[in-house]
């Protein structure tokens, strides 16, 4: 049952990622982005990493995505504008994409990793409790946690400052 679910979620993520790249209508790209983020969250659930999956849903699917759509809608010339990249850029992008794809696949396949052994998922005794994640954040990884929050604070102040002058 689990591998069936894995294939479904993987298909959703890759498919909508492709959709994000290809589609020209702004809100369709946003919808495909929602599909990608949802698919990845599904994969996290399969891996029993509930906390990360839920945070992924809240922060990305619930927050960032809507801010992106909101930003595009307000700043674009008109809500019904379309992306029409010139032909040259499309070819270039496709080329770079192909190169990246070849690089990754060749790297994974050539390595001496024994994929069969990796495939059997060893079920964790119990799914990691959120409490442990919380404690880890505030004890062992306190410094990176604080640095990240300071960085976010600075970003927020900068954004507010930029928005104010532009008005």
């Amino acid at each position, binding site marked *: *049952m689990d591998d069936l679910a894995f294939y479904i979620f993987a298909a959703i993520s890759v498919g909508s990622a492709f959709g994000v790249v290809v589609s020209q*209508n702004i*809100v*369709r790209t*946003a*919808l495909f982005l*929602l599909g990608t983020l*949802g698919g990845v969250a599904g994969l996290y659930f399969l891996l029993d990493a*509930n*906390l990360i999956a*839920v*945070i992924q*849903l*809240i922060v990305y*699917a*619930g*927050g960032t*995505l*809507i*801010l992106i*759509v*909101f930003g595009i*809608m*307000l700043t674009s010339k008109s*809500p019904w504008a379309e992306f029409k990249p010139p032909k040259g850029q499309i070819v270039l992008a496709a080329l770079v994409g192909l190169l990246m794809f070849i690089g990754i696949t060749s790297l994974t396949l050539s390595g001496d990793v024994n994929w069969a052994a990796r495939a059997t998922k060893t079920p964790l005794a119990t*799914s990691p*409790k*959120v*409490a442990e994640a919380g404690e880890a954040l505030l004890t062992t990884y306190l410094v990176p946690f604080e640095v990240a929050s300071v960085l976010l604070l600075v970003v927020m102040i900068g954004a507010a400052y930029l928005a104010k002058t532009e008005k």
Partner: protein
Amino acid sequence: MASITLPWVQRDTEKLSNYRERAIRLLAIIALAHIPIILGAWLLLDPLSTKPADLQDWKVLLVPPLCLGSIGGMLLFAGAAFAIYAYELIGRVLSAPWVAFVIFIGAIFGIVIGVWLHAEILMTVQRDWMPAKETSVIPVVGIEYDHTVQSIYQNNLAGKSVDFPLIGAISIDTPILAYLMFPLQFPLIRDLVGVGGIIGFISLIPGFGIWWERKVAGRIQSRMGPMRAGGWHGWAQSAADGIKLAFKEDYVPPGGDGLLFRLAPYITFIPPICAFIALPFATAWVFRDLDVALIFILAMLGIEVMGVILAGWASNNKWSVYGAMREACQMVSYEIPMGMALLIPVMTAGSLSLTGIAEAQSGGFWTWFVFVNPWCFLAFFLYYVASLASCKRAPFDLPESESELVAGFLTEYSGFRWSMFFFGEYVAMYVVCGLAAILFLGGWMSPFPASSAEWFIAQANIENGMLQTLVKSLLAANPIWFILKATFLFFVQLWIRWTLPRIRIDQVLYACVQVLLPATMVVLLCNTVWTLGVSENGLNLGWLIALDGIINKILAAAGLLTLLGIVGIAAYGYRNNKKLVGWLAVDQLPGK
């Protein structure tokens, strides 16, 4: 006077009647077609008298659908034919008020008992029938299952009885129980049955919610609300609306984005239902007891925004774009105070899983988190206001505000798609009220402490056993308390909607960013300090604990008083309705 038929309405009676004849004939034929299937199945599979030896696994899988399913199909179609045949009789019976009342109350209790029974069966199956994990693979479907039919069949044949809590121990000689139990061993089918229970309850919410909102609105506006559909107080109004909407014209605005227009209702409608996965009705009654249940529900309510934005965008109508933009900024900004306000009970209870939080409030209504300390009391109101905004209700219903934006993002929607949006909105409302009930009002914990059952039985000196168990189970923690509390909060949302006007979009954002957010942060901070001070392994300040006890008593008394006040005012209003509204003798006007 006799009802006159207007001349230009050609009502050729015979054309109408043979529609009915043809319908009855068709249904009868289908019903009869079932009989050969039944005969063939019972002869071929012969479930009752088969010897244990030659019972291969896959034939057992066919017994439930073919033998039982076909009988059910035949009865269904025969019943439909009878209903069309004797529709006057049924109409007369249905219009009697008490029949409608019985159906209405029967439906509610039916679903509650059904869900309760299926939870018991699942637990029994888990406990009695799957002691050891013998795994073998089913040839057809390729799913491994942890018990062979033979072992079930042997247990059943060996007379090992299955004790059901209500019915007591049963031992049946024929393997009919094995056939019924067999599918339940697969986790997938158990989940499907669980989902069936949830969908049953969820479909009841909008049906009941929409009808109740129109009745409450009527009462507040000194009128009756729906009275005709289905007899007693228009109980079938939502069903009638649902059927009507399903047959409305399927209009998609030209120029808009057809795909997104059709997709938007589902993105608004599915997440609130998914939120019910993690919402516990009672200790065992939860589809998946996630330890991140709280954040999962918040995440689901966050995704709902995307559907509204798509709807506003794809309707190719300037007003809808306005509605979508308002929705985006309102929902995103109100998620933060709502999430923060939820942290406060989590902190007081010390655990993130909803069942844990509810367990911590099990000592009678004064231990509910609303009354535990002043900061949780404030947090309840902060959360409730933020939840009003997050499901677009009452003073914050700007995205589909009728007077300015015509209907906001819903302008171009009609028919079934429109009702999907409303389905999603009412389910989201109930999720939010359910969350508030669990976190602040002690979910399925009864207001009376555990010991009160014996005290009550002693006082009323009930001897007979059955009644005692009934009283014990009613007073103890059970889902009915959760449904009562959530429905009361649902009622308060309706009450607010029909009294308060709508606030402007800049006031919505001002309220969120400059009022609600700072207030939630302050309450969060004070609550941390307070819980630290009160808890033993924390600072354990004596005076603070005493103060905490006093405040708890005061708040509990205040809560009780408000409840009694509401009930008192309602009773007063009901008794002298004439004096309040004022009966006017205009009807005796000479001209009338």
